[in-house]
């Protein structure tokens, strides 16, 4: 979990959001029009039009005063209904936590990992279900007890009810989260004995490619037979090289390189003797290759740090003279610094993946990373509240809870699966066509690459499959991708949370749900008589 996720493409995200919104709105409008016209002919058309005008007017005249009044009420309701008892659970959990968590390990960073993971997991597992239940049950109760009747006979628009509820529950969630996370922060600081363990590294990751033992470029190194194939290996004592290309944005006097490689030994050798690694800086354009003065004996299972000074001196192989170069002037081209990694021990292998080697910029404070992760939880709470309140506008509490819960589960785990079906990744293009095409192939015992016979049936099958894919596309874009909200692992492993890869998409996803959810909630409350449902 240390690899930088792909940068978030804001423009593309907005475009997809627009596309999804447009699809949903047109489907909704189409259904409404057809229903209205079949029910009452021409008059139905005007009814729909009238409804649209009223919608625009209701949103234009949205009053912050009334929204605030309803959110205050929601907050009071939650407090008086004893939602804050969740603090008791939290307190109990923490009183006993240290029994189970202490004395885990002496490796630096491991202690922090355990505590931070515990705190952030505990906080999210306490806040999220509480908020889900609270906001799924609030509005249906309000309707069932008919207290909402009295409210909507005041000049309150239904969208104000939805928005007020969302804001009120968000306030409750925020309060609970703030108290818990601050407590958790203090607790972590007191538990972790060594202050320096609480780091928040800001990594710059590079692109990784390889040269094989003969010095020929390859995409991957050697696979030593690991089950998990994340790491590629280079063979020691040969030309096998790992090439890292780092983007250089700032120019500090010292570049801190941090690595964590895996050793794979083909012979036992001297167990005390660790593998030796040579780092060199290379300018591909000028052919300049500067080996770092010292080889590094890598410590397995822990991090190695190499400091590269701004100016380097090396002995030229040909002239035998000492030459001094500037890292940024002489070795950086187009803002990219190339670093070659070679293993010096014959017949031993050095394994690495993209996340194992990075430039470590100036550290941020532990608090920064910690509270960024808390912000991630907060965004998730907001999303859960928004979805729950919306769901509770059209179904009762239990159904709403179930609905939102399933959305979260799907959003958490099923996005890669849906993407695979949708053939978004051209490399993994599925063979044999869509649902009906593959059924057809199965029935006719055709193999998956045989061309289908031309004709009406084939066209129909393809059309239906196409429609299904479009539906799935919509579903995929309607259900939030929640994997970006998982920020705790970064902090737990001592890293800062990347803005572009994690924070920004989480914020955008949450914001993206506000308008559509508000619309859905508004229509569910407006198109329905609020008699007990």
């Amino acid at each position: 979990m240390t690899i930088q996720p792909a940068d978030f493409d804001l423009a593309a995200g907005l475009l997809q959001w627009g596309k999804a919104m447009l699809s949903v709105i047109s489907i909704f409008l189409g259904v409404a029009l057809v229903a209205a016209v079949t029910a009452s002919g021409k008059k139905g058309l005007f009814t729909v039009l009238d409804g649209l005008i009223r919608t625009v007017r209701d949103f234009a005249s949205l009053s912050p005063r009334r929204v605030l009044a309803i959110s205050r009420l929601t907050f009071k309701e939650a407090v008086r209904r004893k939602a804050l008892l969740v603090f008791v659970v939290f307190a109990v959990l923490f009183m006993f936590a240290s029994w189970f968590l202490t004395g885990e390990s002496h490796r630096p960073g491991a202690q922090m990992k355990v505590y931070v993971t515990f705190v952030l997991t505990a906080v999210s597992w306490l806040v999220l279900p509480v908020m889900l239940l609270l906001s799924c049950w609030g509005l249906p109760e309000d309707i069932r007890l008919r207290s909402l009747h009295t409210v909507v006979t005041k000049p309150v628009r239904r969208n104000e009810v939805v928005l007020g509820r969302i804001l009120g529950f968000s306030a409750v969630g925020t309060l609970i989260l703030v108290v818990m996370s601050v407590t958790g922060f203090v607790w972590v600081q007191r538990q972790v004995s060594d202050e320096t363990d609480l780091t928040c590294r800001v990594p710059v990751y590079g692109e990784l490619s390889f040269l094989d033992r003969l010095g020929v470029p390859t995409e991957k190194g050697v696979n030593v037979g690991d089950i998990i194939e994340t790491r590629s290996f280079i063979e020691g004592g040969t030309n096998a090289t790992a090439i890292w290309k780092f983007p250089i944005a700032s120019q500090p006097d010292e570049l801190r390189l941090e690595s964590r490689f895996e050793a794979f030994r083909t012979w036992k050798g001297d167990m005390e003797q660790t593998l030796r690694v040579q780092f060199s800086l290379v300018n591909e354009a000028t052919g300049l290759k500067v080996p770092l003065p010292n080889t590094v004996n890598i410590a397995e299972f822990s991090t190695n740090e190499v400091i590269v000074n701004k100016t380097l001196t090396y002995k030229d192989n040909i002239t035998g003279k000492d030459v001094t170069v500037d890292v940024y002037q002489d070795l950086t081209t187009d803002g990219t610094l190339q670093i070659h990694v070679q293993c010096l021990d014959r017949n031993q292998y050095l394994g690495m993946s993209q996340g194992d080697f990075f430039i470590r910029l100036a550290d941020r404070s532990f608090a920064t990373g910690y509270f960024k992760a808390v912000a991630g939880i907060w965004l998730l709470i907001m999303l859960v509240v928004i979805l729950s309140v919306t769901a509770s506008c059209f179904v009762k509490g239990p159904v709403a809870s179930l609905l939102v819960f399933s959305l979260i589960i799907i959003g958490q785990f099923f996005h890669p699966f849906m993407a695979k079906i949708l053939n978004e990744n051209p490399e993994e293009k599925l063979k044999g066509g869509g649902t009906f095409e593959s059924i057809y192939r199965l029935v006719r015992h055709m193999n998956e690459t045989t061309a289908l016979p031309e004709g009406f049936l084939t066209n129909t099958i393809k059309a239906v499959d196409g429609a299904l894919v479009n539906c799935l596309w919509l579903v995929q874009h309607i259900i939030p991708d929640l994997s970006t909200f998982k920020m705790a692992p970064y902090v737990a492993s001592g890293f800062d949370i990347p803005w572009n890869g994690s924070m920004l998409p989480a914020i955008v996803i949450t914001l993206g749900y506000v308008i559509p959810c508000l619309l859905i909630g508004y229509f569910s409350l407006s198109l329905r008589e609020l008699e007990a449902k």
Partner: protein
Amino acid sequence: MSNETEAVIQIRNLSKVYRDFWGRKKVQALKSLSLDIHKGEVFGLLGPNGSGKTTTMKLLLGLLFATEGEIKILGKPASDVSKNERIGYLPEESYLYRFLNAEETLDFYGRLFDIPAAERRKRTDDLIKMVDLDHARRRQLKEYSKGMTRRIGLAQALINNPDLVLLDEPTSGLDPLGTRDMKNLIRKLRDEGKTVVMCSHLLADVQDICDRIAILHAGELKVLGSVEELLKKENSTQILTSKLSPEAVNDVKAVLEKHNATIESIDHPTSSLEDLFHRTVERSIERPGERFVPSGEPKNEPAEETAEAEST
């Protein structure tokens, strides 16, 4: 009758069918109701249980959607929320937030209107005193008795100083003092030029304070008119005496016969609205489907039987 003055509420051919989830018809609660309510009058909506009074009010407020017909309330359609700025509504049962106390309740509803904070606090205070809840202003509504809840419900309906007040059984659950206060309050509202529409089963009270009444039965309008006119009975005389012995009654009969008068009934006196009410409902049950008839007398023509009329 003040037909000339502005109609605050105009109801035309209003029908309401309650349907279940699948759209199947459950009850026809209102049948083709047409009604005008004028500015400044106290209008009483009467009828037995389940006759559609509450349904009418909810339709007026836009809480329910009409199956057919049109409503203009304060010059706006029922679906227009902005009309609520000038309306106060006391629901049949006080549907309030039970975790709030009296002060918070009024403060909350006050915030839903465009009232300056100072004014809101003042009104909250005044209304709490008006409904005699000063001693319980800090207690949560879940601890309130039925009458107390009713009182705070009334206060809530008046927080925006409305021009039109809809009261659904305002006196239910109130003690005699409260009932008297309620009547005085309604009179006061009328004196201030406000329009009051109320449902009630306490006919004596309705007779006391209402200018005009409508009697509904099974969703149909049976009687509509000013209380005074409806209750005027020019061809009968009611004599109230102290209790008579049977012999005395016979003597009185003899005297009346001498003057060519007949005794229609000798009874303990009852309020005449009650009479009208009973007569209307009984006739309506006997002859379902019959339409609006002034003064509760049946029309001579045979009543037109509508196909969907449900006889109970």
